[in-house]
Every structure is written in structure tokens, then in C-alpha cells.
């Protein structure tokens, strides 16, 4: 129950060449520019490492796992516990191996999702600092959510149906303590309403015009205070204006133009860990 957003480590994984051709896609058919995607990812990692001073574990890419760059789906870390997921897409199940090893190295208590009937993508898990919301999506089922609830007994785990998007966090994320960034679409607003209804806590919301822009990364780092990695003006100019209203945050635009083509969002590309929690 340490301060929300406090992180010391990050686990990332390199972009495999197969990302361009074999990565799973839900909507976009736009061709992914691999070099640009790789460059984009390098920038992302450098922000975590250089700009924010996190200790970053960089896992090598695995060509057999085209989506492996999206490590978020492989594990849910909260406090001293890491739940290794069972991704909803069968092709991604093996991604968890490397992530688990990395998290083990970090000294986290590992909980594995062994139930064959359970599926859970980390992208469907929104941790607000007070509770979990788990999106019920094509990738995540109730059983997976139950196992999550078992792994993190301190927190309430509420179910949020996700429609029209890959993951719950495809249109929302935490932009600060008790501040939920949410997209403007009906689907997003609907999901927010459900979350509000399910929670005993009243969250503030930050509504951005673009759903995808609502996926941002909030951290609370010693010496830096509130930090927010969000989309770039090139991608979502209107949404960026909204983020810029967060005067107290250190705002860091990070491009995600290429990875978004394969449903990648900012949060997807890292697993953040706070080693000193508790």
C-alpha cells in the first residue's frame, strides 16, 4: 500500500521483427513501419531509464512471439506480488516466461495463473491505487479476474464489460491518484459509469477527446513528483490539450504512432515495479 505511482523498476521487451507482419490486430490494417516502431520503443525506454531514472530490465525480443513487446499483458504487479497472467490470445501465452523470470529476479512474489480456463491480459487490469477494475473482454474472462482477486486480496476487484475495444485500458488509465483518464466515446463513458458505480470511492475523471489518448502512464517519483507519459500532439492534438491542463504534472509526450497500429498503447510496453513497497 505504498504511494500510488511510486515505481523503481520497469520491465520492457524489445520489438521483434515479426511485430510488423504477425502481430495480432483488431482493427487497423495500416502497415506498421518496423524501424519506426523500434525507434519509437527505444525512445519510450529511454524516457523510463534516462528521463525518469527507473531501473529498466530490457528483455530480448523473441521472434516467435510477435506481440512480446507488450509485456504489460503478461503480468500484473501490485505491491510485492506479481501475477503472471494467462493471456487470452493463445499465441501470446509463452510471452509470460521471460517476464516471469525478470520479475522473479526483482524479488517479487510470483503468483501464476495455472487454471486452464482462466484468461487475463494485463491490459484489462486497471489498478487505481485503491482497487482493481478488470475488463471483461475477448482476452479476459471472469475466471482470470477471480484469480487476480485471489492474488491481491487487499483490494476489491470489480468487473467492467469491455466492448468495442481490445482492452479496458484501450480507452482509460490512471492519470494521477484517484484520477481516471477516460476517452469520450460512448463505450468509454459507459465503462466509466460502471466503474464509478462499482466503487466506493469517488474518482476524478480526465476526459480526453480520443479514446486511445486516454492511455497514459502515471508515476509519482521521488524528486519529480507527478509524472505523466501521454500521447504526442502529432497523434492526438486535442487530447494533448487536455493533458496540458494538469499543471502539477511533469508531462512527457511519448509517441506511440506505430505500435498503436497493432493495438499497442503506452502502458502496454512496460511492467512497472516498486521494489521497496512495504
Amino acid at each position, binding site marked *: 500500500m505504498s504511494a500510488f505511482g511510486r515505481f523503481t523498476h520497469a520491465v520492457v521487451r524489445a520489438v521483434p521483427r515479426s511485430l510488423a507482419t504477425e502481430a495480432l490486430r483488431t482493427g487497423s490494417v495500416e502497415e506498421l513501419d518496423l524501424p519506426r516502431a523500434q525507434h519509437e520503443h527505444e525512445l519510450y525506454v529511454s524516457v523510463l531509464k534516462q528521463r525518469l531514472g527507473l531501473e529498466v530490465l530490457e528483455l530480448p525480443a523473441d521472434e516467435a512471439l510477435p506481440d512480446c513487446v507488450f509485456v504489460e499483458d503478461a503480468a500484473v504487479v501490485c505491491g510485492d506480488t506479481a501475477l503472471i497472467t494467462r493471456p487470452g490470445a493463445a499465441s501470446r501465452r509463452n510471452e509470460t516466461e521471460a517476464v516471469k523470470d525478470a520479475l522473479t529476479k526483482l524479488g517479487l512474489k510470483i503468483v501464476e495463473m495455472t487454471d486452464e480456463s482462466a484468461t487475463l491480459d494485463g491490459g484489462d487490469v486497471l489498478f487505481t491505487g485503491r482497487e482493481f477494475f478488470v475488463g471483461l473482454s475477448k482476452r479476459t474472462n471472469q475466471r482470470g479476474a477471480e484469480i487476480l482477486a485471489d492474488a491481491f486480496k487487499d483490494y476489491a476487484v470489480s468487473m467492467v464489460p469491455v466492448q468495442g475495444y481490445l482492452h479496458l485500458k484501450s480507452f482509460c488509465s490512471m492519470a494521477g491518484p484517484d484520477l481516471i483518464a477516460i476517452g469520450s466515446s460512448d463505450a468509454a463513458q459507459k465503462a466509466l459509469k460502471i466503474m464509478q458505480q462499482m466503487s466506493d470511492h469517488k474518482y476524478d475523471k480526465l476526459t480526453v477527446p480520443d479514446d486511445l489518448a486516454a492511455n497514459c502512464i502515471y508515476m509519482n517519483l521521488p524528486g519529480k513528483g507527478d509524472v505523466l507519459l501521454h500521447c504526442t500532439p502529432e497523434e492526438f492534438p486535442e487530447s494533448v490539450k487536455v493533458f496540458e491542463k494538469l499543471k502539477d504534472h511533469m508531462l512527457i509526450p511519448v509517441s506511440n504512432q506505430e505500435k498503436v497500429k497493432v493495438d499497442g498503447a503506452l502502458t502496454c510496453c512496460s511492467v512497472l515495479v516498486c521494489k521497496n513497497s*512495504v
Partner: protein
Amino acid sequence: MTTEVGSETDVKKEPEKVPEVQHQTDPVQTDQPDKPADSDPQPVASVAQPEESRSVEPESPQEESSSPDPSSPPAIGGQKKEKGISRFLPPWLKRQKSQSQDQASESAESAEKPQSLKEEEEESEPKDQPDGAGAAPNTEKTEEVKEESRPEEVQLEENEKEEEKSVGSADTQPVREEKEAESEVKEREEEKKEEEQVIQQETSVLSPLRLNKKMKMVVCHVTLLDGTQFSCEVEKRAKGQYLFFQVCEQLNLVEKDYFGLSFKDNAEQRCWLDPTKEIKRQIRNSQWQFAFSVKFYPPDPSQLTEDITRYLLCLQLRQDIASGRLPCSFVTHALLGSYSLQAELGDYDPEEHRLDYISDFQFAPNQTKELEEKVVELHKSHRGMTPAQADAQFLENAKKLSMYGVDLHHAKDSEGVDIMLGVCANGLLIYKDRLRINRFAWPKILKISYKRSNFYIKIRPGEAEQFESTVGFKLPNHRAAKRVWKVCVEHHTFFRLMSPENPTKSKFLTLGSKFRYSGRTQAQTRQASSLIDRPAPYFQRTSSKRISRSLDGAPMVNVSDYSHAVDSALTAGAGENGPALELNSDSKSKLRVQGENIYVRHSNLMLEDLDKTQEDVLKHQASISELKRSFMEATPEPRPSQWDKRLTGSPATTLRLQAQGSTEVKPEVNGQPEVVEVVEETVVIEEVIKAKPKSSAPETPVTVETEVKEERSLSSDSESEEEEAEYHAQTPSASISVQQIEEEPEEEQEAGLIPQALPSVVESQPITEAEPADSAPSAEEEQATAQPEEEERTDKDDAPNGHAAEAPPPLRAVEEEPPVVNGSVSRVEAELLPQVICCSEPPVVKTEMVTISDTFAAQKTEISTKEVPIVHTETKTITYEAAQLDGNGDGEPGVLMTAQTITSESLCTTTTTHITKTLKGGLSETRIEKRIVITGDSDIDHDQALAQAIKEAKEQHPDMSVTRVVVHKETELAEDED
């Protein structure tokens, strides 16, 4: 016991008893008179059944005896009672009851005697009474009616007394409390009598036995939070609060509103002991074994005033955690455990605290060596922390746990899927396995009810929805349903005041059911706590070692709070109960009064929230249905054992989530979201609604009966288990009974067109509503404060008047009564707010009224009306009507959109609001008709009350106007009854 007393009582009893007897048992009467004489000598003969003994009647004898007693309270009570009763009953009757109550309390102290004796005595009394009562002209039926009605009335009076007492007396004073409790009990008993009456009548006992009754004492065993046992003797008929206060005194606990006593019923289910009811009735055949525990988990323990309160909360949470009821992660287990060690053992001492020192403690359901090591590691880091600080830290972490303060009950949704209902400070949580699948915050809940084994909540409609929906859950059995319902009612009441935003608007109070949380709300208890003015009490922290948990006194490891050490020294021998207690008592007594007032307000607050509705409105239905679908799709998995542990309730059989729109459950619900009701069973409101559109007659009387039974059972609450009667409850039936009740009052009004004086106030009101109001409000509030029992009274009284109905044109056709009575009431524009205010003067001895007032016995009511022609009553009805904007209303056929009737009651006023929405020629019209019935003795300033009522109505609906005021006054003509 004492011959002298006994003799006195007997003598006195006979005359006094007479009236009561009449009330109690009709059929028995004939038999009873004979019996009493014979029975007196024969104690044995009175093998009286326990049930019978319960009946109120027994008390009456005691009352008589009490009169001689020095204690003033009885006398006071008697006076008051008289006033209240005077309306309907002869003065002596009133006295008897009051006296009996007081006496009973006193008597309790006296030596123990076999229950049978008491029972016998009680039984005998009623029988004896008949002699005197025998004079009563009424037929059996009428008598029944009277009985029911009377007890209630009496209760009202008694309540008033109680209130006064409470105000004056400190909580700490057990004696008074007992009295109060007893009186309450008696009231209850009276109610029950109705039920029991039928059964009774068989055995009669003599007066000598009565004495014995008083004496009976029972030893209660209470398991305290530290695992120790506390034993205390209580009078057999003592109410729950007596024992509770004894325990609190023992613990030196002042902030006791968060706590309660629980017991295991025959089915091993944990039940809360209702403080306002007799212990014996509640536990039934179970042992007198209780557990002192936290009932309302304060969301923010840091706001508790005293460390001792926090300490007790810690103990409760340690139990919760160790038992698995409060799940938490490894880290949290370790952290909480370490604070426990710090609080109980003080700083980690490497010499003293060797490896094993910790293994005796239980920090988690499944404690591992790893956990213990972690606990020790953390314990070391708490060096310098005082026990109080450690407790505070413990609580700060524990309160964040998602299941903190959540009372779980097994249930099934409408599709038979196992779910859990979690009642907590903020509302009702729905879990499927460990996942939260829905949540209904209190503000969103319009009504809570249960019927049979089903538990229902009516949800405020969302932004896009027009009608509220009802969600139903299936519980394992009726008792489980009732248990959840009660827990919900209590939590709602206790915590709902939390939001400071709620202003005190007076809206309709809906008191549909008898059971209410009668304690202080959290806001009140906080306020009370702020007034605590005593040195921090010294207390010892008992080790939470596993060993100690066992019933046999565990080895005590005591760590005294540093801060308290001084105090303790000062207090010296006084220890826990010293002067500090007195201080407490004082503050309490003051607080109490406030609390009651607040309580009233509270109910208002609920309503207010409703107003806010639109702001807060969530689209439950849509989301819920979605959730439901998604969940239903998923395959239910077996739930983990741990989760099961959390369940407080019995294993659920089935649970059902009914789709929000589900009309299936309650066809009756037409609803509008405006009023929050906390109701048991089907609420009157709903019924009324149903009835109006249809012809009232269609339903069978039988149904009515069933309803009556239900209500009774409700009133008895925990005491009366689920009697079959309750099970019988059926939706359709309810409507009927209500209608009947309502109708009668109207009849009265119609009948009496004698002009009488309702003071100028009335007249003026229609014109200037605000004027009179000023003075009145306070009074009303106080009245409103009335305890649940009072509510009951009012219900009965009010019920008759109960429904104000002025439905929009279309409705009118359907509605029979109100329109007629009022005569020309045409309401058109949406803005119009017609209000009918009825004011009936107290000294009415109208039998009819009485009967009417008896909500419970709808059937009886009818009968009584017919048969009790003897009473002479003068009735005046004055109607003030504002010019109607349009007379069209009546003629135009509109399309009825919704109709809603709301009934609320306070001590002496009953407000029935009927809201109808109709579509007329493309215009939607909302008509609100409010009927306010003010009932009371001459003590009550009716004018003032009326003025207040009008004022409130104005405030509530500033946009609307009062178009008509009807004053109906009934006065008893010179004759006394009998």
C-alpha cells in the same frame, strides 16, 4: 414473592385489568373471568406456555403493584399513558400498562422465580381482566380489534414516556433502562398478544404467582472480544439493551454504538440482539450465550474518540482476519500482525522475544513460518510506538481492505447463480465469487424489502430510465432474507448520515415496517463522542495469543497504555467504572435526546438524497444487465473456501439477480423514484398504488389476513422467527388490506360534517402557509424522533387516514375514497400541489377510529366498525379549498403514467402522499396530494402541527400550491366508553 405486594396488586389489578382483558382476548373473556378467581390459588395450573407468557397482559398486574412502589417513573408513565390512551381507551387502562411496565422493570430485580409462574401470572391477568372488562359491550370480534389497536396506542404513550425518561436518565443507569426496555417489551408483547391471543386463553393463573414473575433472573454469558467471558444476571424479561449496557459498562466503553451483541440461533446463524426487544424472545430456545462484537465498522477509525474503542475494534478485526472473514494479502497480514505485537507486547525485545514468542499469535488463517518471520521483522521496526499508536496504525491499514466492514450473505440471483450480498457502510455490494459484480450505494436504493426468502431492493432509475427497477435476490430461507434486510436497514440508518451535504429537508417519511434501527447513527455517535469528557480510561490489552482465544481465560499479557497509566493510577480502585462513568452518563443523556432528533432527520435525509438523485443517478439497469449478461456467460466456478469463511450468513441456497426492470417480482411496483423507503415485506405504498387503479374489492379477505400476520411478525422482528404467517405474505393480499384501512378513515370524515373548531390556523394556512409553521417544527421533529415503536403506533393510527389520494383525473375514477371525501378536488397542471390536511383531535373515543388505526387487523377493523356503534363521536370536517385553476381535470381522461403513494409517520402525524403522473392531451401532469393526519392528545397543539405540516409541504414543493385544506375533527362526546 412478597405477600403484601402481591395482595395489593391483585386487588388493584382486577379493576384495572378489566379494560386490558378486553383488549387482549376476545374469545377468552368469557372463560377468563372464571379462571382468574380459580387460578389465583393454583400456580401450577398455569402451565402457561412460554408464548402466552410473552403476552403483554402479564405486565398489567405488575403495573398495579408498581403503583405503590416509590419509584416515580411508573406514575409518570401512567399519566402520559392516560393521555394517549384516553382517546381510545378508558383512563385506567392506560395507567395499568404504564405502571406495569415500570413495575416489571423493578420487579425484575426481585428474586428469581420459575418462568412458568410468571407466565401463569401473566396469563391469569388477562383472564382476570375480562371480569372487569367483561362489561365491554363489544362482541368478540370487536374486542379483538380493540386489543390490537389499544396496545399500540398505549405504546405510543409509553414511548413518549420513554423518550422523556431517556432524556432525563443517563444511559448508564441500568434501572431506568430496564424499565424502558420492559415497557417497550410490553408494548411488543402487546403486539404479539394479538398474535398470541388466539393461542392463549387456555391457561389461567392466579395473582400470587405474579410476584414470582418479577423475580426471575437469568445468567447471560457474553464472550468479549478478547476472548474472555463476561457473565451477568439479567431479569428474564430484560431487553437486549440492558445486557448490552451491562457489557459496555464492564468494558468501560462509551462509544458503544458501533458494537452489538450477537447470538447464534437454532440454525447456528449469527443474529444481532435487538436492544429494544426482550432477549428471551429473540434467542428463543437458544442458550443465553452472546458475543460482543463490532456491528458497524467505522469507515474511519481515526475519528473514534477513545483509544479503548479503537482497541476493541482492533480485537474484532484480529478475529476477522484470523478467521479469514477479512481476507488480506501476505504483506498485509504481516503488517497488521506486527502492529498487533507492538500493541500487545510493546517494543521488540531480542532477549525476551525469541523465535517462538510469535507462534502463539494468530495473524492469518493459514499462518506460515514465512509470515511469522515477516511479522517479527516488521515488529522490530515499530520500536517506540505506543500501544495506542500501534492500534491506530493497525486500523489505518485494516480499514483499506476491501472487505473491511462488509457483512456477507449467501444468496442467488434470479437465475440461480450463487452470489454474495455484502452490506457495508456505503451500500450493498454484490459479489460473484470474489469479484464485485455490482454495487448499490444507499442513495440509489429506494426501497429495501423482503418477502419470504426473497430480498429486494428497488433502485432509483438512471438518467435514461423512467422507472425504478427492483432487483431481487433469493436467500436460503426466510430468516436469511429477513436477516439481510435488517442488516441493510441498520446499516443504511447508521451510515447514511455520513454525507455532510445532506440538508435537513422534511420530506415524506416512509415507515412501512416496524423494524428500525433504533440506535444512534454514526453522525450522532460521533457527536456524542465529541462530548465525552472523561480521562482516557485505563484498560489492559489482552494478549491475542491463540491460547487466549479459548474460552478458558487465557494467559494475559497486559500492556498498559502509557498514556493511560497515569489515569489509572488516579482512578485507582475505581478502575474502569469510576467517576468517569458518571461523566459519560451525563453526556450521554444529553446526547440521547439529540440523537433521537437526528434520527428523525436521518430519515429525511434519505429522502433528500433522492432529490439529488438525478445528479448522482447512475444507469444501473443498463450496466447491471450488461454485467449480468457477461457474468452469466461465464461459467460459475467453485468458490474458494476462504471466501466462504467470510460469510456471516447461512449457506446460500440460491441467489438471484433479477433484471432491473423486472416487474415480475413485484408487479405492484409502479414506482417513482422519489421516496426512499425502507420497508419490510411489501410496502403499503405499493399496495395502495395497485389498489387504486383497480377496484379495491377484488382480493380476498384471506389475503388480508396473511398480511396482517406478516406485519405482526415483522413487528416482533427477531423475536418472532419466521412464523408461517410471514411466509404466507403475498403481494396481492397486501393491497387489499391497505385499501380497507384507508377507506375507513374517509368514511369517518364524510360522516362527520359537524363544524368544529380547528383554529384559525387552519383557515389561515391555505392562504398563508408559512405563517403558522414557525413554531411547530421543533415539536414535530421531536415527535418524529419517536422510536420504532412509536412508529408503529402512528402507523396504526395513521393508517386509517393514511392515504391521501388525489390522483389525476384518470386515477380518480379509480380512486374511490379521497375524491369523494374531498369533494371537488380538481387538479390539473403539473405544478399544482393539492394537499389535504386532516387534523383529528385527540380525545376521540371513536371505536371506529381505533379499529381503523389498527393496520394489522384489517379484517377486524371492518368488523369493529360495524359493531361498535355505541361510541358517540362528534366529527367535524372543514374544507378549505383554493380556487382551482381548472375544473377540467376531473373530466378529462388522461393516461396514467405513474401513481405513487407514500406514507410517512411521525409521532403524531401521518403523512400520506399520493403522486400521480398522467398524460393529458400531450401534457404531462404531476399531481401530488398529501394527506396529513395529526393525531394526538390535547397536549398536542394541533393548529401548530397543522401549520407545520403545511409549511413543510410548501417547502418540499415550493412550486406547488396548497389548494385545499380539510380539517376533520373528532371529539368524543361526554360519555366515557363503557
